[in-house]
């Protein structure tokens, strides 16, 4: 998802830069050449391809920005709490007690209750300690 949004942004910005440059060149060209009939000729209308390119590029960048924005969070307490719990469970199974990703979640509001000493996963802690000893033994 992140890659897609970045690619969309890059393509869109490139197209946008090209469109703006084209529009500038177009207006410069028409400002230099003397107009045929009416003397001042308020800058000839933009060619259709530049218009289309501008609109397409803006749409692409918008899509890229929306895709690249952080995910929305459910506001209903029940749904949100369910998501938080699942996240916590996944992390605990992965590796002991790992902090939430920074800026990713608000964290479990009941963590204080979940991690009372009586509920500490002793086996996970023991494994963690053993790993640490194995690694740190050489150091």
């Amino acid at each position, binding site marked *: 998802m992140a890659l897609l949004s970045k690619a969309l942004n890059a393509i869109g910005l490139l197209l946008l830069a090209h469109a*703006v440059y084209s*529009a*500038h060149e177009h207006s410069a060209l028409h400002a230099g050449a003397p107009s045929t009939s009416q003397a001042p000729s308020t800058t000839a209308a933009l060619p259709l391809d530049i218009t289309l390119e501008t609109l397409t590029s803006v749409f692409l*960048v918008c899509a890229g*920005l*929306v895709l690249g924005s952080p995910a*929305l969070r*459910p*506001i209903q*307490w029940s749904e949100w709490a369910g998501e938080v719990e699942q996240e916590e469970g996944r992390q605990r199974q992965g590796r002991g007690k790992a902090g939430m990703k920074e800026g990713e979640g608000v964290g479990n509001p009941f963590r204080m209750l979940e991690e009372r000493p009586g509920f500490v996963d002793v086996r996970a802690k023991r494994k963690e300690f053993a790993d640490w000893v194995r690694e740190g033994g050489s150091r």
Partner: protein
Amino acid sequence: MLDERELAIHPIVQESVQQNARTIANIRNLTASLFGVAAGTLGLESYPGFIFYLLGTLVVSVLILLLRAEGKPKAYFYSPVQNLLLGEVFGGLSSFVLTWTLFYGLVRA
């Protein structure tokens, strides 16, 4: 009264509401200046420019609804019309006008 009762039964997470509002405001601010670039390049003047901005924000709202809210605005916004459709539309207007005039002047020098 009914509303209060409803909130007591299905409580709302304030932090999530704020986070969502911040995300929307961020997207709006970024896209507003982008629309300004487009409007200036296209050489829009007066009312068409503002109509272009309103249409653009509408498109962005639809994009958010489809890509981020998965078509369920009720789950992510307390009042979908107010927060998603109208949220921060006028906050981005100043940056829109800024880039609009800048690029209009740059392109039609």
